[in-house]
């Protein structure tokens, strides 16, 4: 295949935010993840943990707690409001003021009729859930300290709330506290500090389980209000608790980054009487575990170290399957970097600003494996801050580098970028069509004459760009009338076709010449994660969350021969075992048979002319090929050229001069930016 010059970029200082809360919807298997910057992400656990949706955050609003109510998602935070999210338009739908100060916790009863919120002023507010909104029904008896945690009894008649130094059990009907469970403070110097009940669980047998800042997990009899058992789990805080569906297992997350499992087991063989026994300890985090979910088969945890960890319980899953492997979700599943191929520019999207960089230049030639001397260093051209509180949700850079656009949930800004020698000028296009008020996907045509923006109900707005003007030409709408947002947009090189994919797994191809819907790709069960048009044949290449690849011929409205061959043969098991989705696809214009794609841990160039690997062949064969003599190589090579030299890849693209760009974000760099973890005594230090 040959030599490539690679721009290895590590100056994208992307820092994911810490995970603050998790909520799991068992019916749809969607995990909602709230981060400290206010963003809420929705992962589809039934579709390979794919991150389907991201609701951008806002400076003043950070969700402290999340709660699913059927298919509605509620969040509340320290701004004192309970917010319901619009999962179709990826923005808040409505907010209700609690009038109780910051809200620390919310929870709905199992019946889905009531939502309780624990407030700073010591009240638990009960909201009635209505069709379109929630309405304050009553406040329960006010307590002295803030309510930091609450849990409904499955019957819905009682509610346990953790406050400072105690747990109260309320009768929801009367609003009175029926029990007061005093929680011991820590020993030693911590004795003077009040203990915070960070998390509480109320099980159906009226057992109350609490986790507190003194490092204890305590098991109480909620009927009598007596303490049954204390497990000292850590020297620091127990921040989160979660219980399995069948209430036989409870997990506790601590400040040390450990997750401790307790199981309801008979203490002696063959006895009926069960007690809560500490069983396993998982250590998958370096920092606080702030949020936990116990699914039927796995422990899902997240915290200060920004990683979402899915740790399967090996007694619940089949061993040595893909299901039994641990997953760490580090990076968003949508690209944050856009590359202008022709201009050699990179656009980095942060939550509150954009950065435009020009890549450096090298001189001379080098042998494979060597670094070339850098003649010209990369240069940061523009640092563009957002206006207002809302975070940036999407951005795009035209391939010529002349246009730059970004969107928050309430405004879109389009800029003309002019680069001449050493001067950079950025001109805002002042009058945008009114319809372009927000977009969760943006994309330019290859010749930079058009801008496409994904709007509500899977619609695509098409705008034409001239020197300083942006005009709305048309709005393309899918036939299906899906309400789901589009998460992928791509346009063919010749500007003839536009493909749009939404989270219902629908991919629609529009003819831009006639501005009509051309066809829809047969719906595949797994969500597309990236797509691109072939530069010559205009075949649409798609990757899916389950790691499948398919190529769809737009002209023939059917899968191509290559795609069929690939499906007949099946992808290599190792390819299917990868646990991060392909997030970007591009083609090599000079050799259109080469497909370039990447996930977090590798990039791959697929040569469509070469034979496909079968199950027995070595998938990662680059090392082997290197050791073979030239003549032998052809015989052993297959279509998938996988390179693992680069890790934690956020972007992989090909510039016009045939050099590659790889943007890496090493985990160590992220770790060094995180606050220090709790101090743990190790050895004799």
């Amino acid at each position, binding site marked *: *295949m*040959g*030599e*490539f*010059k*690679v*721009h*290895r*970029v*590590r*100056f994208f200082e992307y820092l994911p935010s810490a995970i603050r809360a998790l909520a799991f919807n068992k019916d749809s298997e969607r995990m909602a993840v709230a981060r400290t910057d206010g963003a809420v992400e929705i992962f589809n656990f039934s579709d390979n943990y794919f991150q389907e949706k991201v609701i951008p955050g806002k400076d003043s609003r950070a969700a402290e707690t999340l709660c699913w109510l059927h298919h509605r998602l509620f969040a509340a935070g320290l701004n004192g409001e309970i917010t319901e999210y619009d999962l179709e338009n990826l923005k808040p739908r409505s907010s209700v003021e609690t009038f109780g100060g910051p809200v620390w916790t919310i929870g709905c009863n199992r019946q889905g009729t009531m939502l309780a919120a624990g407030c700073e002023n010591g009240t638990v507010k009960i909201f009635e859930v209505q069709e379109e909104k929630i309405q304050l029904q009553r406040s329960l008896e006010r307590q002295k300290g803030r309510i930091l945690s609450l849990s409904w009894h499955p019957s819905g008649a009682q509610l346990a709330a953790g406050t400072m130094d105690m747990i109260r059990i309320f009768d929801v009907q009367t609003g009175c506290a029926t029990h007061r469970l005093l929680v011991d403070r820590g020993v030693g110097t911590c004795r003077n500090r009040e203990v915070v009940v960070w998390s509480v669980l109320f099980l159906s047998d009226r057992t109350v389980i609490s986790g507190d800042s003194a490092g204890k997990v305590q098991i109480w009899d909620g009927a009598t209000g007596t303490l049954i058992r204390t497990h000292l789990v850590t020297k620091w805080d127990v921040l989160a608790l979660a219980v399995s569906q069948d209430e036989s297992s409870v997990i506790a997350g601590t400040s040390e980054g450990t997750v401790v499992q307790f199981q309801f087991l008979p*203490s*002696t*063989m063959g*006895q009926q009487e069960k007690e809560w026994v500490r069983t396993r300890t998982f250590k998958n985090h370096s920092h606080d575990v702030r949020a936990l979910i116990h699914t039927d088969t796995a422990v899902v945890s997240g915290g200060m170290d920004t990683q979402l960890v899915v740790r399967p319980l090996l007694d619940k899953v089949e061993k040595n399957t893909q299901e039994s492997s641990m997953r760490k979700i580090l990076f968003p599943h949508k690209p944050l970097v856009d590359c202008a191929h022709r201009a050699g520019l990179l656009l980095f999207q942060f939550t509150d600003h954009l950065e435009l960089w020009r890549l*450096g230049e*090298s001189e001379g*030639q*080098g*042998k*494979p*494996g*060597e*670094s*070339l001397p*850098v003649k010209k*260093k*990369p240069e940061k051209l523009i640092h563009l801050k957002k206006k207002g509180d809302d975070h940036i949700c999407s951005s795009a850079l035209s391939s010529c580098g002349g246009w730059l656009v970004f969107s928050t949930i309430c405004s879109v800004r389009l800029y003309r970028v002019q680069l001449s020698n050493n001067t950079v000028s950025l001109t805002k296009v002042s009058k945008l069509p009114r319809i372009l008020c927000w977009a969760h996907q943006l994309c330019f045509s290859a010749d930079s004459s058009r801008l496409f923006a994904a709007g509500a109900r899977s619609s695509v707005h098409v705008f034409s760009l001239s020197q300083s003007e942006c005009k709305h030409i048309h709005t393309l709408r899918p036939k299906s009338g899906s309400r789901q947002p589009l998460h992928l947009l791509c346009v063919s090189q010749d500007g003839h076709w536009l493909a749009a994919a939404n989270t219902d797994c629908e991919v629609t191809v529009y003819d831009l010449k006639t501005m009509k819907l051309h066809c829809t790709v047969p719906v595949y069960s797994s969500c597309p994660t990236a797509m691109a048009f072939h530069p010559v044949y205009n075949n649409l290449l798609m990757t899916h969350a389950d790691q499948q690849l398919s190529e769809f011929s737009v002209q023939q409205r059917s899968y191509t021969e290559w795609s069929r061959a690939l499906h007949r043969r099946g992808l290599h098991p190792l390819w299917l075992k990868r646990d991060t989705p392909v997030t970007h696809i591009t083609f090599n214009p000079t050799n259109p048979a080469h497909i370039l794609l990447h996930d977090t841990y590798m990039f791959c*160039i697929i040569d469509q002319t070469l034979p496909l690997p079968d199950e027995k062949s070595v998938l990662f*064969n*680059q090392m082997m*090929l*290197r050791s073979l003599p030239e003549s032998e*190589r052809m015989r052993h*090579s297959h279509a998938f*050229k996988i*390179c693992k*030299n680069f890790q934690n890849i956020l972007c992989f693209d090909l510039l016009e001069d045939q*050099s590659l760009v790889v943007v890496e974000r090493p985990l160590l760099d992220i770790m060094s930016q995180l606050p220090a973890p709790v101090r743990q005594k190790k050895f004799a230090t």
Partner: protein
Amino acid sequence: MAALYEGYTLFGLVQSQISSHLGIRGIEQERDDDHVVVTDSTRSVTLYKVSDQKPLGSWTVKQGQTLTCPAVYNFQSKEYVAISDKRVIRIWKEGDVLLDKTFKATVSSDIWRVQSAPEQEPVVLFERGAVRMLDLLLSDPQQSIEEVLDQDELIRWNTVILAESRQFVIFTTEQKGKHFLYLQRLNPNTLQRYQLEREESGLAPLSCCASYREQNICLLYLYPNGHLYQSVVSTRGWGTEDGRQVLPLPRRLLLSLSVGEGPLEAASALELDEAHVAVVGVPHPSAGTGKDFLCIWNTNFQTLQAAKEMGGKIYGQLWCFFNKLFIPHGKTLSVIPFVCPKSSLASALGKLKQAKSEESKSPASVPSWNSILHGEKVQPSRPQETKKTLGYFSVTPFPSLQTASAEDVQREVEGVLTRSDAQNLQQSVSLFVSALVSRSLEESSFYTPSTLARLVHTQCMSHSVCPELLLLALERKDYFLCQLCLQFFPDIPEAVTCACLKAFVSMPDTDAEKVSLEPDSVSFMETLISGKHVGNYVQNGFSPSPLDVEHTDALSGDGVAIQTKTKEEETAPSEPTCPVGLHKAVLLNEVLQTAYSDTFLLPHLKDLSSEQVILFLQYLQFLYLKFSQDAPTQMHGLRSPSLAQIVDWVCLLLDAHFTVLVMTQEAKGLMLNPLAFVRLVSELGKIEGSLQEINKMKVKKEIGQYSIEVIELF
């Protein structure tokens, strides 16, 4: 975790009982788990329903008569049986009101006790040791009763155990400060007598209890010094002869309870299950010296599982029926329910014995530590006793080991070895060896090398069983036996190992060659010396070439190395020669393979003279060279020292004799030319190279914020 529940009072003790030392005479099980028959210390028998805490009936003998043993319930005839004034058997039913009007029978000898087990005829034990079934006795009450015990032998305790639907009467006796255990099997009647091991200062057991499990009777006895012992007696496999032969009863210290101030006076231990023991009258380990505690101990983990303070005087009495403990204390008799669940931890740690058939054997074959440690006192100095015990193992009593000729001994040993089962083999072998060794020590002309070798070959022996054996073999220059001992004994002290080493090193080669040794080890050494087997084995892709002298120089690089260069060349021929003879080498190999700990070995190694050390070092060096040149030597499957063992010995020797070796002229070559170490160092040098490579690779990994690299895809 065992637990004691809240107890309740069954009844109050009357004043006379409180003042008496005895408490109550006994509690016996009645028809089911909720009824007990209580006999007080004087005249009355009361039937209680335990859960209701109320008496259902009470019977009293006339004023002037006393009940001399606890009344029992005959499960078969649903009658009560009691003994008054030692000779009168009284039998009545629950409906009878007055005891005087019921059945009475007078027997001709004093009765110690009558005992009853469910579904079995009650058994009467006479004070002189005779045992009768009650129905047989009543058929002729005046029948003559034989005397089993000696005149001055008194029964102290007894019980009846039901094992495989067979009754065993167990009783302990005391005679002149010695304690015996009798095991009487009924139908057919056999009696076996055991002697309990002496506890310090002639203490008598305070309490005993017996239980049956896995074909063994398990005895538990508590001494006033707080020691709780367990002895296991097999209910099977004893000979038909019921002589007066006394077998020693091996014991195992289960618990050593702290007794506080002074010995225990009234205390009792009761086995609850195989892991739990209830103890009363012993101080709580963390509650001062008060002895009024009821404790449950786990004997597997030596942990106190539950404890309860019992108010008032403790009588040292304790009964247990159906998970309820009955304990008289102060003025009441309390019933305390308890549980002893099998802990998961115990099963997890493998402490919980599974009911395997092999398991039941093991207790019997474990030699008692007491007999091992004080063995020399017991066995050689008291030949009669040895003889007596020996008779137990041999079916035809052997006249005496002290006088028989070597051939007779040989025959006898062969006989025993073929006859005795594995269970007794260990004991009989050790007894034989002890007897033979003590005789050989006494009679200088007597020595039976083949017999001893045969016995050692059984692999049932260890050094501690007969410490004199190896030294005797050395003294008699029986090197074959030495070799066997070194091979089979796991516990040879370092001093003895060193003595062997000394003897082997200093023995003349001509002597050594006469000895016949184990053929395997000899053939191994033969191949090693001749070097015939050398195959072109390549280790780690590297075939060791003869020493690279230049490399050595480069490494040492100081004057010494240059001086010795010529010497190295002289003493480093391509094929090293063995400095000792073949058989000597074989014996030395055995020493190399024994287990040792270097702290204990070092002081003894210093006893070697410098010539011995040098010779031994030379031999070790030879071995090392052979081993490192012909790596796969150990693939023979023969017993041979490992390279690590050789190097360890070299280091030990150098440690022990460094100063002497530095001063010795002959040693200089050896010291300065440690080919072994040269090779080691050169191997280390190679590793160093790869380590440096790894370092370099790491450095290369440093990547800045931006770089332009060239990669090649194939």
